[in-house]
């Protein structure tokens, strides 16, 4: 699909800049150009497609679907986990969303399945994983994320942790939306998706570039399998360390994916790389700060703990399976 981009990169690096093949700089630059083109194009297409699809699943609809199924536990959790993937999720929407669900009578556990699934199965990451690593890896990503979402929701639901939600949440009366907003037409949807895509890329391109830059550096200077000794299948602690390092970090999925490819090339086991990616993208400090407004520290800690544990487990599982 991207052979033309590789040829362009080769032409630029070896003909136009005249660098010798096989040198560190040539390798790094070649990767930078090729991967840069590839990632930004993929990003644009994937974000556009996803945003367009998401337009059909506004949070109000999700809330309605989940509230309707509040009696059916397992189905509720599965639905929440599935809807978490497609519904838009800006981290500041997490709070109004949470409150909206609680107010509609959606059980706490189900709400959590949603809260875990939304950042954990990141559609951009999914699209990029599919494009870069193929269907199998992408499917594993979705399935593991969904399983973690459903299970953590079930566990939290079972533990009866309603008392660790800030009290005012249960007292909020959500107003009736007095909106003047008309139903979007197809043209609106296509155009909104385009505006959003442009704006997103304008906001995140530095981070993506950094991710590609680091990948480029690794591509040029870090020989294949250099990290295998430390983070390959042999090291039993690798996944723990990867997740421990990843959780406090946050990056947009597009920024971290180029790195994942390079990490695996450098010999890091696939499960460990994936666990690292999930840890980085699923939990972010800004989101935690916002969630603190509705969750008491203990519940927030449980949330982070369960998600992290799920990711660690998944990392080990993949290392064992792949």
């Amino acid at each position, binding site marked *: 699909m991207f052979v033309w981009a590789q040829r362009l990169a080769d032409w630029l690096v070896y003909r136009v800049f005249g660098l010798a093949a096989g040198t560190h700089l040539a390798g790094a630059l070649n990767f930078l150009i090729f991967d840069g083109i590839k990632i930004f194009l993929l990003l644009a297409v994937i974000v556009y497609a996803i945003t367009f699809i998401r337009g059909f699943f*506004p*949070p*109000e609809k999700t*809330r309605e679907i989940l509230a309707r199924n509040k009696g059916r536990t397992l189905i509720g959790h599965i639905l929440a986990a599935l809807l978490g993937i497609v519904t*838009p999720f*800006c*981290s*500041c*929407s997490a*709070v*109004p*969303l949470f*409150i*909206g669900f609680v*107010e509609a009578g959606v059980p706490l556990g189900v709400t959590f399945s949603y809260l875990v699934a939304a950042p954990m199965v990141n559609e951009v990451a999914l699209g990029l994983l599919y494009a870069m690593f193929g269907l199998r890896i992408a499917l594993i990503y979705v399935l593991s994320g969904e399983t973690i979402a459903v299970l953590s929701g079930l566990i939290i639901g079972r533990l009866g942790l309603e008392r660790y939600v800030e009290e*005012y949440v249960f007292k*909020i*009366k*959500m*107003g*009736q*939306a*007095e*909106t*003047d*907003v008309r139903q979007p037409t197809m043209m609106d949807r296509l155009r*909104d998706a385009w*505006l*959003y895509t442009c*704006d997103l890329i304008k*906001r995140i391109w530095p981070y993506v570039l950094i991710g590609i830059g680091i990948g480029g550096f690794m591509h040029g200077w870090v020989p294949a399998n250099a990290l295998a000794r430390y983070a390959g299948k042999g090291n039993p602690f690798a996944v723990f360390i990867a997740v421990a390092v990843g959780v406090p970090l946050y990056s947009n999925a597009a920024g971290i994916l180029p790195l994942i490819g390079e990490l695996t090339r450098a010999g890091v086991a696939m499960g460990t790389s994936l666990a690292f990616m999930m840890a980085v993208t699923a939990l972010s400090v*800004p989101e935690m700060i*916002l969630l603190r*407004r*509705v969750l008491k520290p203990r519940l927030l800690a449980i949330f982070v703990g369960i998600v992290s544990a799920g990711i660690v487990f998944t990392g080990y599982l993949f290392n064992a399976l792949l």
Partner: protein
Amino acid sequence: MEIKVLGMGCASCNKLAESVKQAVKELGIDTEVKKIEDVAEIMRYGIMKTPALVVNGKVKAFGNLLSVAEVKAILQSDQ
């Protein structure tokens, strides 16, 4: 004319607030654009997706980013 931007501090919300302030300036409307960050108050408008634009108590747009031109159109239609 009462203009409020509902949002809790993420990049999109701040961006909308800026666009709205710009639109207000360009249209010469003499009013303060209020940024509402309090969750309880945001919920009272019945929306779950921030950022949102509220003019004279009615929600005019929510969940998506508006260009300055679009904000101007909304503000003008209410004048």
